[in-house]
């Protein structure tokens, strides 16, 4: 296996801004002071020991601040959804999707799945026989819709979870057409219409 530096660099993305910048600069400064303090350790071991310990604690504190600190508003990625309707091309551009919950919300919007209206009844038998219809109370209807909504959310969640595995596989197979022929020859004899 060879290491391609160019490809490696393409896959490395470093974002140093906001709190991250403060933490990184702080660690570098403290590291420099740490080096200065310990450079002549033999000349003043007690001073170096006390200062070195303090600097180490400060470094750990900075790292902890960076990892455990509450997310600031500017650190939350901007979310936007651009839908190109005019061109009728179905182009969608999504940015700032930082969680499965956001992805599920986006997928639901994109897929067009809407909440169903409350059902008037349930079918106990065949829907072809109206005598098999049982009227539902408003509470039962709401319960049915709530169940469907939960199921849809779970379906979407599972799909998002599976997407990671599928993306790793080659995409070519997805474009192979299977199933019956759906082609039909056009006849545009409009005079008959």
């Amino acid at each position: 296996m060879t290491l391609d530096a160019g490809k490696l660099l393409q896959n490395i993305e470093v974002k140093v801004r906001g709190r991250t910048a403060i933490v990184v600069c702080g660690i570098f400064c403290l590291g420099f002071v740490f080096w200065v303090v310990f450079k002549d350790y033999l000349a003043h071991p007690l001073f170096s020991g006390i200062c070195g310990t303090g600097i180490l604690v400060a470094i750990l504190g900075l790292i902890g601040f960076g990892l455990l600190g509450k997310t600031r508003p500017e650190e939350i990625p901007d979310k936007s959804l651009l839908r190109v309707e005019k061109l009728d091309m179905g182009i969608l551009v999504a940015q700032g999707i930082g969680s499965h919950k956001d992805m599920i919300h986006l997928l639901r919007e994109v897929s067009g799945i809407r909440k169903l209206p409350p059902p008037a009844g349930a079918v106990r038998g065949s829907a072809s026989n109206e005598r098999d219809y049982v009227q539902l109370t408003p509470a039962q209807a709401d319960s049915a819709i709530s169940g469907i909504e939960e199921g849809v959310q779970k379906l979407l969640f599972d799909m998002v979870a599976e997407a990671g595995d599928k993306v790793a596989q080659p995409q070519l197979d997805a474009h192979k057409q299977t199933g019956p022929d759906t082609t039909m020859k056009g006849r545009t004899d409009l005079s008959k219409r």
Partner: protein
Amino acid sequence: MPLGDELSTLATAWANKHYLVENLVFKDQKVNLDGYRFKNCAFINCVLQTHTGNFKLEECFFPNNWSVLFLGNAATAVRLVSITDWSQWNSFLKAKIHPNGGVTIE
């Protein structure tokens, strides 16, 4: 994972998955079909609508008045269909109507 890849994969997966809704009666409602597979359901005086055509019906019934509203890409497909000769359609492209009146569209 790049967002574009994930969305593309999700879109492909969504086209093959539908949430099953069965044994329910909808009456005097507007029902958006997209994303669902309705099984043994009845739609009484309902307006059915679809944007994508991504739905399935299995042994469903449409008593009394009902109508369908084609929107978005589904409307585009219907416009194309409107200039074809309906008699040339093969069975796969036609809805299956069962002896008891049930309709299956897969």
